[in-house]
């Protein structure tokens, strides 16, 4: 804690920390100083001159946004001199400002309006004509109205200091000064919407909701974003039951008010016209739209019939990790207790379960790193080249750590360090980038582990543990490692020393670890690495697993996995039910007769042919979802679910922070929140089982009651583990756990014309859901395959041209247009997983022998130009 400073503002005594800016001290005293360019997120710029104040003994008026407090300062913010100067500033600003408040979307929440009311002369001495800029668009989503601009540069500074996108610039000068993009071209930026949010006036506004509202009509609800695991607090703002725009209060939530394109522009899926809106029962090929009561009766009796005929184990259920904690808890309770099956799983199976299983085995917990730890770390070791796109807000924390706090960033991935002009890219930010060959993460970890284990740094690790590590690595040679990964011994040694020597080292890993081959083993290797380097079990040190969906942490913790009961209590080996992949296999074999799929679409993660066969084989397929899908096309009963905007509950983000989700609007159409559907079904099922009292309870219990039940059911230690317990678990893990490591004999050979294809997430989309948001489809609408411009040049491919990808030389290929991207490694291709199912068919599928995670994101393909048809 800094020294406290006492000062007087307008005769009020204030005490603030040393280093506080005057404008902030005044705010603390309840005195508002008018300002435009000042923003607490940004460094002082003092360009607008609006926040001037009088300081006793200072010769001139001072800008309070750039003046730190000093002991005994006497400040006046409303003396006649100050007012006169502020009148002057306002007169200048209003000299060119158009009087278009009635049609400006900022009207009603505009700082220029507000301060003009209080601090403006009633008349102006300017008689000249106003200067007029032509209207411009920054691109499909942002409107620029330069006549309204007050040249405070907040947008340019935000784009630079916070996002690091550097897409906006301050151009020309004097009277003709304007904000803009390079040579007035369309922006191809991150579209985080930050510039719109931070603009104090209506110079930058969203084209997505242009003229759709007046600010005072908006009903605002704070809730948590449902796109990725970052868990950003956002405010859904709607006119009646239509979500019209999204904002995030500066400084609020884990994201501190920052959002990404998905959060800011991705709300369009909520009120989308294609939402499933009526419960539907399909009999003899005909769709019957029915009441909820009927649908629930039909579902309950269907499930009970199967149970009576084949036993409860003929029923399986999979839930999406987009659902709330309450919903996942109720679902697993419905499946496990009411129905009595052990086949329950969630979409956390597609990768996150690797992180949970590995980290729990090594440390007893998954909660080790919070955003604050990233900010305070001096070394960040990141195995997630796509971090800036998959988890943009975690990336903002990493950027702040590197750029502001000078942390060292070691990035290990298969991307190149180039970046697309205005879209940040982790390897490009890295102070040390290890560009490894695709699919060699495990070996790269061993390289680091060997360097750390053989290094001479001081750690709290016991000598026996050290020896154990060395021994287990004895058969691993750097030559082999280099042959496989392409990284030299020297680099591994340097990076090992850097990581092990960190005061606070944080290790972050993403889909290249959790969603790719050897996932579970690689998580364990990372755990070993952190332990050997002494970067776990102490405050500010640890591992962080990135999650793709918003509630993957919650999904596993609430028991949405066959091997875990709520609170991560392990299920005994005999009682363990099928995982997602096993359920599909069992359905194909005819062992599972009924599947209840809640927001989960196995067509997107498993081979389509197999899934189709399996699902067609079922006697009862229940599809509960937001949008029609391949599953709903085959389902016998379709239950329309409500989106996150239409329900209350809790999401758990990737730090393990449990955050409240609040209902913003009534369910769209005749949909219902998933938890209401589950509790309705529970009552129906129990009533059918001979407890008639249940059918009388028509009202669903409130979601708060469910949450209370969860909190009381879970073990007391949940969710946090003390450091001693982590250390104890860690020690026991090393004592029993270490195995001998092996490295593949030699490198996979590079074949001419063969490319490494991987499916990954892109910044503008998340799963399938975002493809229903018009704001996001404007940015990326169709499937494209990314290729490095050098590869394209060698193959004489132009941007936008179609190419055909084939696996193994024969069979049918997939034709897609190409887009150039400098972030890729030469020789690799990237396909956004949000589009087209065909691409999956090219990639081989393997299943993790221990965690049952299906891996199908990577493969090798050949590439051919599609020759233009001869006309």
């Amino acid at each position: 804690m800094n020294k406290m400073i006492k000062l007087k503002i307008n005769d009020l005594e204030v005490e603030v920390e040393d280093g506080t800016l005057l404008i902030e001290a005044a705010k603390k005293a309840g005195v508002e100083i008018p300002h435009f360019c000042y923003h607490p997120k940004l460094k002082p710029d003092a360009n607008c001159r609006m926040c001037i104040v009088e300081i006793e003994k200072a010769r001139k008026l001072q800008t309070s946004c750039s003046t730190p407090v000093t002991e005994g300062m006497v400040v006046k913010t409303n003396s006649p001199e100050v007012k006169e100067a502020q009148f002057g500033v306002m007169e200048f600003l209003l000299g060119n400002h158009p009087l278009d408040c009635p049609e400006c979307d900022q009207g009603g929440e505009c700082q220029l309006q507000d301060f003009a009311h209080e601090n403006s002369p009633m008349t102006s001495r300017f008689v000249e004509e106003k200067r007029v800029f032509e209207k411009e668009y920054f691109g499909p989503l942002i409107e620029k109205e330069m006549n309204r601009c007050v040249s405070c540069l907040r947008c340019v500074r935000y784009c630079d200091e916070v996002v690091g996108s550097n897409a906006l610039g301050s151009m020309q000068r004097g009277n003709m000064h304007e904000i803009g993009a390079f040579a007035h071209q369309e922006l191809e930026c991150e579209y985080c919407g930050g510039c719109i949010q931070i603009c104090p006036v209506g110079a930058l506004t969203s084209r997505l909701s242009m003229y759709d509202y007046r600010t005072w009509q908006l009903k605002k609800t704070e809730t948590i974003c449902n796109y990725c695991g970052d868990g950003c607090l956002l405010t859904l703002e709607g006119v009646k039951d239509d979500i019209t725009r999204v904002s995030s209060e500066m400084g609020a939530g884990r994201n501190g008010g920052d959002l990404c394109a998905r959060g800011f522009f991705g709300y369009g899926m909520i009120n989308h016209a294609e939402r499933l809106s009526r419960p539907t029962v399909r009999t003899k090929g005909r769709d019957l739209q029915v009441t909820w009561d009927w649908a629930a009766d039909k579902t309950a009796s269907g499930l009970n019939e199967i149970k009576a005929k084949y036993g409860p184990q003929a029923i399986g259920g999979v839930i999406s990790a987009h659902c709330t904690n309450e919903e996942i808890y109720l679902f697993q309770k419905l499946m496990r207790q009411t129905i009595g099956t052990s086949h329950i799983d969630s979409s956390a199976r597609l990768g996150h379960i690797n992180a949970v299983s590995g980290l729990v085995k090594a440390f007893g917990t998954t909660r080790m790193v919070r955003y604050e730890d990233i900010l305070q770390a001096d070394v960040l070791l990141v195995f997630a080249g796509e971090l800036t796109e998959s988890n943009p807000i975690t990336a903002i924390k990493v950027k702040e750590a590197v750029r502001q706090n000078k942390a060292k960033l070691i990035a290990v991935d298969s991307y190149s360090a180039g970046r697309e002009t205005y879209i940040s890219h982790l390897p490009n930010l890295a102070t040390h980038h290890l560009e490894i060959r695709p699919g060699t993460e495990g070996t790269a970890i061993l390289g680091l582990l060997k360097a750390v284990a053989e290094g001479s740094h001081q750690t709290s690790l016991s000598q026996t543990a050290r020896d154990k590590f060395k021994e287990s690595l004895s058969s691993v040679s750097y030559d082999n490692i280099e042959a496989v990964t392409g990284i030299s011994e020297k680099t591994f040694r340097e990076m090992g020393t850097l990581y092990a020597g960190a005061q606070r080292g944080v290790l972050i890993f993403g889909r290249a670890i959790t969603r790719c081959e050897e996932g579970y083993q690689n998580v364990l290797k990372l755990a070993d690495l952190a332990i050997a380097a002494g970067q776990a079990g102490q405050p500010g040190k640890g591992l962080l697993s990135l999650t793709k969906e918003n509630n993957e942490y919650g999904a596993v913790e609430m028991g949405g996995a066959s091997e875990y009961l709520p609170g991560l209590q392990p299920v005994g080996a005999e009682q363990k039910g099928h995982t997602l992949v096993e359920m599909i296999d069992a359905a194909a074999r005819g062992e599972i007769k009924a599947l209840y799929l809640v927001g989960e679409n196995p067509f997107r993660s498993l081979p389509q042919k197999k899934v189709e066969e399996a699902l067609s084989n079922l006697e009862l397929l229940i599809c509960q979802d937001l949008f029609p899908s391949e599953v709903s096309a085959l389902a016998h009963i379709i239950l329309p679910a409500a989106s996150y905007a239409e329900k209350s509950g809790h999401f758990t983000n990737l730090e393990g922070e449990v955050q409240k989700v609040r209902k913003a609007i009534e369910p769209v159409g005749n949909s219902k929140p998933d938890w209401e559907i589950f509790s309705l079904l529970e009552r129906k099922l129990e009533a059918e089982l001979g407890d008639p009292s249940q059918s009388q309870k028509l009202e669903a219990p409130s979601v708060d009651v469910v949450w209370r039940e969860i909190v009381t059911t879970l073990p007391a230690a949940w969710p946090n583990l003390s450091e001693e317990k982590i250390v104890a678990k860690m020690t026991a893990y090393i004592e029993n756990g270490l195995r001998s490591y092996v490295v593949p004999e030699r490198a996979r050979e590079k074949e001419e014309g063969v490319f490494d294809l991987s499916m990954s997430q892109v910044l503008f989309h998340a799963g399938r859901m975002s493809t229903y948001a018009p704001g996001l489809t404007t940015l990326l609408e169709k499937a494209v395959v990314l290729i490095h411009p050098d590869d394209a040049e060698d193959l004489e491919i132009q941007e936008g041209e179609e190419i055909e990808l084939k696996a193994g030389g024969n069979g049918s290929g997939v034709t897609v247009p190409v887009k150039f991207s400098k972030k890729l490694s030469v020789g690799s291709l990237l396909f956004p997983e949000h589009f087209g199912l065909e691409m999956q068919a090219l990639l081989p599928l393997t299943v993790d022998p221990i965690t049952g995670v299906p891996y199908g994101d990577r493969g090798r393909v050949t590439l051919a130009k599609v020759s233009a048809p001869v006309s």
Partner: protein
Amino acid sequence: MRLKVLSDKAKEAIEVQFPSYPDKRSVLLPALRIAQEEIGYLSESAMIDVADLLGLTPVQVYEVATFYSQYNLKPVGKYLIQVCKTLSCALVGAGSIVTYLQEKLGIRTGETTSDGLFTLKLVECLAACGSAPMMQINDRYYEQLTPEKMDRILEDLKRDGKSPLATGPFMLPVMGERS
């Protein structure tokens, strides 16, 4: 790194500057000058090349290029006429000089004659107030301007590519004399 328009020579000339500055971004002003000398003006491709060389985004280069009147974002004529419009020159008739040039060349300020010879531009003080009104054509100053002088200068330039009326930047004012 593959550059779009700048030659290897220009690239080298820019890179040679790096050690003289605290970071690459600081080399922006000389880099733009080098690019402009090579291409004659700052085309979009040239600015992108400079951005790539200095590790900046194109708009960061564009900000600077649009701020200084010394950088030309459009192609200019063989002779770039920059007339000072700041106070000292304005008081002794810079306005009429500009009007005279506009009429004589048949262009407005910011434009280039159709034969590609002359571009007329207004600039701020060039630090020759003592011999106002003045203008700069390419790298040379022309001071104490009169319509007759300007006729001769333009004719000289058209004919010989240079004019004996050019003065050094430090022409001393003669007390009490107005030519």
